[in-house]
């Protein structure tokens, strides 16, 4: 199963890899936008 997944990864076009990586980066940056206000308000109110 893992060999199959490796094979899929190796046959995936580089542009798809780039797009997935780009989406992961944006998702991480979006998480910062959620965590920021929550942490700030939490610490300030406690």
């Amino acid at each position: 199963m893992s060999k199959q997944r490796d094979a899929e990864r190796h046959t995936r076009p580089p542009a798809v890899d780039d797009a997935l990586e780009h989406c992961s980066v944006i998702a991480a940056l979006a998480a910062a936008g959620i965590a920021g206000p929550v942490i700030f308000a939490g610490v300030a109110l406690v």
Partner: protein
Amino acid sequence: MADPISALAAGPSGWVQDVNFLVFGALMIAYAIGLHLGVRPTRWGVVGLAFLVLSGAGLVWAGLFPSTDATGARWDDRVLHIVAFPMTFLGGRLGLIVMSRRMAGDPRWRRVATYALATGIAVLLLLLAGAGPVRPPGAPLHPSWSLFQWALLAVWFPCTVVLALRLLRVARA
């Protein structure tokens, strides 16, 4: 909520609030970059990013230059700290208004563009309304300064979270 947010940096555990400002500022800069990457680019789109980064930098600034001195005592007139307030609020809201125009031109963001614009304008109006009668020490409504700050956050924070959730959906689409 009885004290202004900057006053939380006073006392022996005041460093926690300084770190809170630094962390929040860094996260808001990251979020601004995320919004810039997640909304369809426009010719002047980088202007919105610049204002939003300025807002995050204002928060970092507030952490680097607290309203307290080395003994932990708080002062209301520490100029370096006061600068952080307009950086954070004016920068952030102008950034939100500019970014909302980019959102309006992107079908993935159109539904939240009006909310972003309304939030930016609402906070700006609150800032203008509070500049004279609330902010200056000795002003008639100055005792409500801390409540006023929390009111600004109560308008700002939900919009930030809503747009961040939208950004998350855009990233996963």
